């Protein structure tokens, strides 16, 4: 027989009401995220460097620096550090506590000058994960499984976002705990007791770092969905991450130096940008991209 003929046009078929927010299942988002994180845990080659990175920034560098200042009492180092403190804003200088030059120097170092560790670690880890998360599905062929599954594209995107964000942020929070302990143990006696984290650091860690992380990942996941290979994704993500680290570092330092309201304001702006970036990035994950077909987009 001749099959019934349906008029055809060259225009894409209408997509009707598919995969709207109302249909989104957070349960499936969690499933995708959990599976991705489980794969990371199973991959020693990934998490061992991650642990080393956290240890270097949160444990080794602060310990060496603070020990040198507070316990060894290296006069030359303290002198040089004290000069450095003079360039801090007056508002920041007024907050410095401590009786001795060593104490003041150690306090300033711990509270004001080691902010990069809070930014470099999560951005580096999360970017490394995010860059390969979508293109990796395509390269391994598992994108086919996801494309044929009932999971919505938004659920897959959000699941992968969470799976990229959580390891970096969790490592940072854990490292932050270790860092706080070291600072209190080494600097606390110099300033009259345990004092860390300060209010500014709490704001930095809980309010400023997460949106910067989300904003960076929104760009990285878009790249991961568009490029042809994991290697290309890593290269492109590196280009994005470096300026993001610079921006995030400067803003976080500003948040620490300024009044606590500065941190709130920076955080709000970062959250707005992050939400915008994520909503745009969500469109980057499509079934055709998971399958790796050339849709001319």
């Amino acid at each position, binding site marked *: *027989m001749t*099959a019934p003929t349906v008029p*055809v*046009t060259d225009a894409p*078929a209408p997509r009707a009401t598919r995969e709207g927010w109302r249909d989104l299942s957070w349960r499936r988002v969690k*499933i995708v995220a959990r*599976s991705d994180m489980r794969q990371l845990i199973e991959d020693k080659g990934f998490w061992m460097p991650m642990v080393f990175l956290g240890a270097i920034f949160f444990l080794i560098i602060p310990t060496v620096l603070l020990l040198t200042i507070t316990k060894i009492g290296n006069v030359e180092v303290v002198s040089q550090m004290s000069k450095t403190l003079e360039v801090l804003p007056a508002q920041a200088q007024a907050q410095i506590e401590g009786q001795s030059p060593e104490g003041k120097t150690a306090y300033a170092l711990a509270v004001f000058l080691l902010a990069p560790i809070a930014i470099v670690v999560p951005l580096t880890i999360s970017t490394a994960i995010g860059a390969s998360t979508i293109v990796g599905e395509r390269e391994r062929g598992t994108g086919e499984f996801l*494309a044929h599954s009932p999971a919505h594209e938004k659920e897959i995107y959000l699941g992968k976002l969470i799976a990229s964000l959580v390891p970096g942020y969790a490592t940072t929070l854990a490292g932050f705990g270790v860092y706080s302990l070291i600072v209190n143990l080494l600097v606390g006696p110099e300033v009259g007791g345990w004092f860390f984290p300060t209010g500014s650091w709490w704001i930095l860690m809980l309010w400023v770092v997460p949106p910067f992380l989300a904003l960076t990942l929104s760009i990285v996941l878009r790249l991961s969905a568009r490029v042809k290979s994991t290697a290309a994704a890593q290269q492109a993500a590196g280009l994005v991450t470096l300026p993001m680290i610079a921006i995030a570092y400067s803003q976080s330092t500003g948040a620490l130096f300024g009044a606590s309201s500065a941190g709130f304001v920076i955080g709000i702006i970062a959250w707005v940008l992050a939400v915008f970036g994520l909503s745009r990035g969500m469109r980057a994950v499509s079934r055709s991209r998971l399958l790796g077909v*050339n849709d001319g987009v």
Partner: protein
Amino acid sequence: MTATSSPDAPAAGTPDPVVSLVGVRRRFGQVDALAGLDLEVPANRITVLLGPNGAGKTTAIRMITGALDPHAGQVRTFGLDPSVHGEEVRRRCGVVSAKPALYDRLDGHANLAYSAELYGLGRGDKIDQRIRAAAARFGIEHALDKRVGGFSTGMKTRLALARSILHEPDLLLFDEPTSGLDPESSHAVLDMIREMTDDGRTVVMCTHLLLEAEGLADKVIVMEDGDDLVSGTPTDLTRRFWPGTVVLVGSEAPIDHDVLKAIPGIRQIEPVAEPEQVRLHLDGDHRTPDVITALVANGLRLTRVEPISPTLEDLYFAVRTKRVAGEIAEDGGRRLADGDGVDDGDDLSSVTDRTRQVAALTGWPGSEGPR
């Protein structure tokens, strides 16, 4: 394009097809992956999409589940438009792709558990039992706690098959499921696929390996360049594309072909390797007794009379030959079915042989030569 097969016409009381594609077009960049594909998949049957690489088989599968949207035409799976009701459609489909699409860093159980959760089965002891039962069905339960990265290709395929049935789908879609498997494993996998229809499931299988489809397909859809050439049951295709009756005749002594030419009802004489044997193309089954009687009357002491049924491979090349000759697109293959005399058989045999010779050079399946 025009669909070609009369067997596709729904008879009164026939259940609706599980899948229906009408005039579906899909373009990737400058390439037409599907160029007006029409196909129907009947319920509780194995439908085989047959065609060379690049014929559009995988894209057709992706259209059926809504993994890809058509640029034109209509797709209906379970009567639903997958572009709109994608989740509902995909929940009722189980897919095994050419690459097993498994997570190498996870163990077998975790791979199946991930699928179970995504398809809404949840977690817990009952699901674990279900996972073990599915794995046991495909003989892979012993490896569930091992990382998939260490699996052989055969084990991965078995695990992918187990995953595809875990959520008890109504429609199973297998895209070259034996790709990369050794013959023994391929055979086992095909047996498993056959068993699945025993449960009342509908199966669509893509392959470019004709022998795979042999004996498995309830319906065959031959595809090329994103289009369907013909479709129907193997019996239908035989009736429409195979020239009458072919009988292998053996004798105690070499057979004199001049004797055969004088016997009415023999359209073509096809020599085989042994001079004591010959393939006779007859006008129809009704000629067989007369021809045998005439052979005996001419003094031949027959040792063998064997009706030859065409293999799917024979049919496939017959269809492609007619496509090359431009006969299918115009009339949907009906002219061949009408049978217009001796020429059909001669043409088919000789052109089919040429196709096989081309196949031998290009690496096409079935290129070992005429049987």
